[in-house]
Structure formats: C-alpha cells, structure tokens
C-alpha cells in the first residue's frame, strides 16, 4: 500500500471541510477524486502534501506516518503536487523552474549540470523543451499547466497529486495532456491521485474513483461502478446537472 488515509478530518475554525475520510492507494494505481466545487478535494491534497494540519486521523506513505511533517519533507519523501491555479516561478526561466524541482524534491540532486540535464529530459517529455530558456511568465495557460506538471515530475515523485491540470484546456489539449501523463507514468513509474472536473478524462485515466460530497466520502470504486452509484448520482451528478 503506497498511501493510506486513515479516518482523517479537517476543520477550519468551526467549519468542517473534510470528515472521516478513509481510503488507500495501491502502488502504480491511478486514483481519481471527484466532487463539486468546495467539496474538499483540494483540502485533501493540502493535507497529504503537508500544507494544512490534520484535525484528526493519520496519513501513511509506504507505511511511514507523514502527517505533521513539513511540505518540503513530504516532498523529499516522494509526494509531488500541482496546483489548480498554477504557481510557476514567473521570474525564472522554464528550465530553472524544472531544475529547481530536481535539485530538491526527492532527488536532492547536488549537481547543477545533472539537474539541468534532468530538467531538459522532462521538458522534452512534456513538450516544452523548445521554450526551456524563456522566462516562465511568458508561457500560455496550456504551457503553464505543462510546466506545473514538469516541475512536479522533476522532484522524482512516488506519488503525484494532480489538481485539475486539464481545467481550461481545449479538448485537443486535454487529449495531449492525458497522453503525456500516461507516458510519464510508464516511464517514471509513479502513482497518481487526480482531481478533475473533466469527467471523460477521469473516466479514461482512473482505475478507481473516490467521490467526496460536502466533506464526506460517499463512494469509492471503479469508474463504471461510480457512474451507476445511487448516492453519487443523487448527491453529485444530480446536484450539478
């Protein structure tokens, strides 16, 4: 078991954002997380990545408890995360952005030359290498999304948390993005948890899906099952459509 989420809860002030969530992720699996806006998906990622403190429960990565660690420590253990609202280092070049991931993260690469080499390779994987020396701030939205992915990949993750990397992309770009993620997954051998609003993508990519509604987990299972699940249809699809 790569990741075990044991009965975690999170509240901000008096508001409960997540309650009694329990699930686990197998090594090599691609797990989807779905739920309406404000359901608590991003909070879940923040808890795993260490940006927010748990109110209750534990999180284990490969058997090691990681809740309570700092984000950089969790990253060093092999958890990488992308942001729904991209956070590139705008003042650095595209290459520097990605190399920073390789220098820290779980690689902790000490040599600048090797880090740059790794960064070039990953940029080639995501199709951004021709822009390596441009300032990151000059990219398009699709470019930012790819950069976000490249930065996360460069840290050498065992577990990659993808937060709506496809939101705002055209259908063509979505297809490309799925292709890139799948190729990289093969090549670098990591596990994925993906939050996505683009339903089709989720269905295509994931082996299992977790559904969160108002901070509670209401279903977990393969995509086909989830699509048939009464509670999900009622709570989620029903609410949205």
């Amino acid at each position, binding site marked *: 078991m790569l990741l075990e989420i044991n009965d975690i809860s999170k509240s901000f002030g008096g508001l409960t954002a997540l309650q009694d969530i329990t699930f686990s992720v197998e090594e090599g699996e691609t797990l989807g997380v779905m739920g309406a806006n404000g359901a608590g998906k991003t909070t879940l990622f923040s808890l795993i990545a260490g940006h927010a403190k748990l109110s209750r429960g534990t999180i284990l990565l490969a058997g090691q408890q990681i809740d309570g660690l700092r984000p950089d420590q969790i990253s060093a253990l092999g958890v990488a995360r992308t*942001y729904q609202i991209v956070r*590139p280092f705008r003042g650095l070049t595209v290459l520097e952005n990605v190399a920073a991931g390789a*220098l820290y*993260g779980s690689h902790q690469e000490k040599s600048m030359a090797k880090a740059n080499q790794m960064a070039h390779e990953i940029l080639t994987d995501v199709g951004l290498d021709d822009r390596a020396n441009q300032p990151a701030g000059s990219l398009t939205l699709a470019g930012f999304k790819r950069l976000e992915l490249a*930065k996360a990949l460069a840290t050498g993750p065992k577990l990659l948390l993808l937060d709506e990397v496809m939101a705002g992309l055209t259908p063509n770009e979505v297809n490309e993005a799925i292709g890139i993620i799948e190729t990289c997954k093969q090549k670098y051998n990591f596990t994925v948890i993906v939050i996505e609003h683009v339903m089709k993508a989720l269905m295509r990519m994931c082996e299992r899906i977790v559904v969160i509604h108002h901070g509670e987990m209401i279903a977990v299972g393969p995509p086909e099952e989830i699509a048939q699940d009464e509670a999900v249809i009622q709570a989620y699809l029903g609410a949205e459509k």
Partner: protein
Amino acid sequence: MNNSSNSLRFIGIGAVIAIFGGLSGFASEYMLGIGFTLFMYIALAQSWVILSGMTGYISLGHVVFFGSGAYVFVLMWGLVPVWLGVALSGLVVGIGALIIGYPVLRVRGPYFVILSFGLAELVKNLVLINEARMYMSLRPVFGAPSLAQLYIAMLVLAVAATGLTYWVRRSRFGAGLRSIREDEWAAETIGIPVARLKLIAFALSGIVPAMVGAIFIMRSGIFQPGDAFNPIVSFTIVTMAIIGGSDDAPGPLLGVGFLVILQELLWANWPEIYMIILGILLISFVLFAPSGIYGWLSANISRSKKNAA
C-alpha cells in the same frame, strides 16, 4: 561558454583585482579614499543581494549587520589583533543572525521591509543604552592601520562578497532562494526547505557587512551608535543594489560603481546642488530603466544582437 573564454575571463578578473590592489602602493590618499568607499559599498550591496535580491525579502535595515559588526569590533579593540577582530566580528554577527533570523523571516513582503528597519533601530537603541550606561557613547579608535591597508582589506571583502554572490547565483542553494522569491508556497511544495534556506541566506548576508562595519570604524576613527547604525547606510545599499538591478553579481558592481563615481564627481564639482542632481537621477532611473542598469544593458545588448543577426 567554452573553457578558453572562461579562463580568459578569470585572468581578466584577476588582473583587475591585482591592479586595484597594486594601486594601494602609489595612488593618492584621496583616490584610495574613493576606492575604499567603492569597495565598501560593493561588499555591502553584494551581501544585500544574497538575501534581498535572491529571496525577495527586501531588507531596509542592513545597517544592523554593519553596525553590530562595528560594535563587536570596537568592544574587542586593543584586546585582540586587528584582523582577528575583524574576522570575529563577522563570525559573531553571523551567529547572531542565525539566532534572530528564524522568527524575523516569518514576516513577508512590505511587512518584512519595515520590520528589518525596526530591527536596526532596536539594536541601535540597545547599543545606545548599553554605551550610555558605561559612559562610552563615543569611542575613539586610535592607532588604526593605514589607509592603504584598510583599502586592501576592503578590496578583499568586496572580492569575497562578489564571489559569494556569483557562486550563490549559480548554486543549488541559489536556485532554492530564487524559487522562494518567486513563490514561497510553491517552493516548499517541490521540496525546498524554505525556512532553512532563508535563514542561511540571512546569516550569509550579514557576515560581510559586519566585517565591513569593523573596517569602516577604523577609517572614521570613531564608534558612535548613531553613526554606526545610521539608516542612511541601509537606504544607500538598497538604492545601489536596485539601480544595479538583477540578482547576479554584475548588478551591484554596476550600481555601486555608477553611483559612487557619480557622487564623487558631483560633490567635488557642484557641492551646493549635487544631492539634488543625484535625487533627480534616482527618479529618472525608475522612469527610464526600471530593471536597473544590468537589466537595461542586457535588454539593449540582446536587441542589438537581434538586429545584427
């Protein structure tokens, strides 16, 4: 960049340093004085860049290191050999920075800017109280080394600080710092230990200014808290670094070189209005070269390269 041009560059830099060093033998006192000021501000601005240029934590209180170094040094004056005293003042202040750095660096943006200023004022007032208790509000420093020696010492610090900035800018450490500047949260996400890196940068950025402060009071011949912790020094450092532009070693060199030489020309020739001219220049800089001299130069060079191609 191939190897031969690299070694050529090193020979060039070595030659420039050697020429500046050699000047101490025969340049006039006045010229050495200008050189001393030039090196002093190069060392200070380079150190400022390590913290503020790299991490974006703009320090408006860098005089705190300068003044503390001077104070530590003057306390040891006559008790330890001069140059050991200079080194020790750097060490003591560096350790002090490590201690206060952690809480201070939790504060960001404009809050940090004013916090850093307040920190310098706080330390100044503590020193002031301490000195007044001992009735030592003014300590003369008699028997300092000659100007030529101080000039060389300052040259060494300027070279060291420039080298440090150059190295940091190209190191893994620097990559971490610059990521922090761009987005501290995202930097932490990719595994950069932000608190630790900021702390190291803070301490590194304080050591050279402390030693500069120690050497400075041998030049001014006197230690007084009000002079040693003068906020104008902080403002001057920031001004020079920003005018230079960039988070790399050439920026401060350009900014300091330009401003120090300009000031010398101005005050000697137009003593009545040189400050006004200087102020107008600062304003014009923001309006016409907002990325600093280095940024302006690189933009123009790349443009002319494009035109040539």
